[in-house]
């Protein structure tokens, strides 16, 4: 299948959408709560659990408040995009499907050096881990490839395979651009004019960086964290049509997690406290995961 090589950030995304749609995935839109990684979208964390098949792909804006550099670093951002694919159960030819997606975005696999380098992924805040690789293209990590073994402290069975592409980095590589803000966002030859990644996000990086490092009121963040934490079990205790309100409860876990990241960026969390906060979020996540699996198995 021949495709035109993408020319812009957005066409890279569209190419991946088309490719994974052709493989039969549901193409979703981002989750509308701040998250630190595409994995945290309920379409991955929750749908990876339970017996039902699930195949989806989506872009997820991801926020890492501590990574902000006021727009001055060419490849570090506090807000960036991950492309996420979840295939459950993982198909036998998942590696081939993945390699096909690289070809689709214009990487010639006989010219580039593609390697699968051991990387055992884990995300302690959601009690998740899996085995897989970092995928390297010419020495650069272009994707994370994981066979989930546990999520929310529960075994994942059947196993879900997860692919995460760091879109900005991948795009910089494919387009040979050294500074993320120079990435063409739309077709640079467009009749309506070229727009760069910087045109869209540079000011956002500046303002958000200042807010992340100096703006947020730590006591307010802390209060909100505790409120969210207290709400999760209450929400799970409430039910509709016989089902505990897992999905809203999980949104609150995500909010708590983001609030933690903000407190962390503000330097408000001592090293010794870190583990305890992560443990608190993980406990909330486990509660949601258990309730979700119960509903899935009952259905």
């Amino acid at each position, binding site marked *: 299948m021949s495709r035109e090589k993408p020319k812009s950030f957005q066409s890279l995304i569209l190419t991946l959408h088309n490719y994974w749609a052709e493989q039969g995935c549901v193409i979703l839109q981002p989750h509308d709560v701040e998250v630190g990684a595409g994995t945290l979208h309920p379409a991955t964390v929750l749908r990876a659990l339970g017996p039902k098949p699930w195949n989806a792909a989506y872009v997820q804006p991801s926020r890492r408040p501590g990574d902000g550099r006021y727009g001055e*670093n*060419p*490849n570090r951002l506090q807000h960036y995009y991950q492309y996420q694919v979840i295939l459950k*159960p*993982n*198909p*036998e030819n998942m*590696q081939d499907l993945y*390699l096909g997606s690289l070809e689709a975005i214009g990487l*010639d*696999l*006989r*010219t*580039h*050096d*593609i*390697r*699968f*380098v*051991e990387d*055992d992924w884990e995300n302690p805040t959601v009690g998740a881990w*899996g*085995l*897989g*690789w970092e995928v390297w*293209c*010419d*020495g*650069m990590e272009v994707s994370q490839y994981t*066979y989930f*073994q546990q999520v929310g402290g529960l075994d994942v*069975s*059947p*196993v879900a*395979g997860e692919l995460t592409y760091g879109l900005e980095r991948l795009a910089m*590589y494919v387009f040979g651009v*050294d500074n993320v803000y120079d990435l063409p966002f739309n077709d640079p030859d467009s009749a309506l004019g070229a727009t760069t990644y910087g045109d869209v996000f540079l000011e956002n990086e500046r303002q958000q960086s200042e807010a992340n490092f100096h703006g947020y009121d730590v006591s307010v963040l802390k209060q909100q964290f505790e409120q969210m934490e207290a709400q999760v079990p209450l929400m799970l205790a409430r039910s509709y049509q016989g089902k505990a309100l897992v999905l809203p409860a999980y949104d609150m876990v995500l909010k708590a997690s983001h609030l933690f990241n903000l407190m962390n960026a503000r330097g408000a969390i*001592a*090293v*010794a406290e870190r583990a305890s906060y992560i443990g608190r979020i993980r406990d909330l996540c486990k509660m949601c995961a258990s309730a979700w699996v119960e509903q899935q198995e009952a259905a």
Partner: protein
Amino acid sequence: MPQLLLELFSEEIPARMQAQAAKDLERMAREHLAAAGFLPEALKTFAGPRRLTLVAEGLPLAQADRKEELKGPRVGAPPQAMEGFLRKAGLTQDQLVERDGVYMAFIEKKGRPTPEIVAEMVEAIVRGFPWPKSMIWGTKKLRWVRPLKRILCVLDREVVPFAIEGIPSGDVTEGHRFMGEAKPFVAKDFDEYAAGLEAHYVVLDVEERKERILEGCKTLCFARHLELVEDQGLLEEVAGLAEWPTPVLGDMDPVFLSLPPEVIRTSMRTHQKYFAVRKAGETGLAPHFITIANIQAADGGAVIAAGNAKVLSSRLSDARFFWDEDVKVGFEPWLEKLNGVTFHAKLGTMAQRVERIVALAGEIAPLVGADVAKTKEAARLAKADLASQMVGEFPELQGIMGGYYARQFGLDAEVAAAIEGHYKPQGPSDAVPTAPVSIAVALADKLDTLVGFFAIDEKPTGSKDPYALRRAALGVIRIILENNLRLSLAKFGKDDLIAFFADRLKVTLRDQGKRHDLVDAVFALGDDDLARIVARVEALDGFLKTDDGKNLLAGYKRASNILKAEEKKGALPVGAPEAPTADSDAEVGLYNALRLLDKPLKEALAQEDFTGAMTQLAELRGPVDAYLDGVFVNEPEHRDNRLKTLAAVRDAMGQVADFGLIGG
């Protein structure tokens, strides 16, 4: 004789697990084959990024028939015993033969066909393989290191038929993912298999992959007048990351050469798995690198080199950023941060640890001839770099960065060197610090660790040593011995820690080929000065290699046996022997020898001239031999004095070592 070829083909196996996997496969196969009565003429295994392979030569096509004799119940035994036996043997009573009052069963066991045994063996190996970490995938319950895709299993060119969790055996495998035809191919024996892999761009044998990498690197270097900075650990790793390893030389922006070479090498090695290179005949790094690609690219590797160069640039830009940020901050704010870093829940923060190390280093300094003020300053700053951004990114550069930053900030050279070297030695091949300030801080660092973890009862047990206390103790021992330091360890730790040091020292000396009984004989004296202990062991070792030494040891044993035997009859007389009253040359001789020995022996020991002390002891050999051969100890009127004489021999020798612990 038939050949067995087995290949377990999977998705990419972590490089660090491959060598052990090849060993485990060989061991398991040998065990299974041996249990079936097979002894292959040759058996070899291979491991690579996507496959484990076994080839065994010289298997029969079936087991030999076997006759088994089973002993049954006695004649006249209760019927239950007979029933049980018949059930177990699968026989009826008329098939039994009576022999010497016992029923015997003679069972003919038909040898089973080898394919059956092989099928069972492969299943047992796959299901029981000891991967350090394994996983399930898809809807299968099978565990493997990564998804297992194919099983090639042929015996004597025939597929051994079986399936494991839906994965059927066959005679098909795959070569390189991208190079060549990139299609599966058939292999019915090892020759076809090896030739097929070669044709499909896979180097099967890891040793060949390593050679290919080194050869390739050297060729690239030669053409550019460069030299490879060899790195065995990296070589092992990259040999497990490529089926068709192809070195590619790339360029690094020379501006990064202003970074410390350790930073560049660490970034290359840990992040990118690149080899560093230097200009032929020079020591610093050259602005190039070599990456080991898994492909001979259509364009000769130009795209690969350029891509990798870009990644390295961005890595080194990060490192440069960390350096620039770090030198804006400096030691004092870092030290402040260590207040928030827990060292261990029961041992407080890193800042508290620093305080302890400062105090300890201050105590050690005068003992090793170090300037106390400089030592304390170095100890105070030694851990600061843990809070730097560079060490946050490259933990293995702890200490080294502290040294660089100290020099950057214009600190005293001795202080900088002590900060840099205070983790040393970090392994058996690492050098120990030799400058006095460095020695004091390095010792304080390790002693604080040891004393702390011993105090909270976190001692190593068996194979568990999570805080690397054995390494720390060994570090202390090496620093002391290699610098010939005179320290009394009891100053720094309680009995259990001293015993731990003694234990480690024994291991060290044993590794150097010293007899462990000599080490025990010297340790029994209760000394805690390692240099002195070692000097004694060495002198003793030399002495026991002489005739005098051997004979004196024999004499000692005879004397102490007599003493032991007599002791059983009642308490031995105490006190120094008196001049012998019997008219016996042997008695007079030994009495005089002991008297003459006393002073020079004590002097030699006081001067720690242990070889001299041994020479003095050697003077006893003749008199002791004559005494033991010519004097009857148990003569009633002389018994007391003669036992005192033997005890005096034992005690004199006991000042040098406990000869009783030395083996014959």
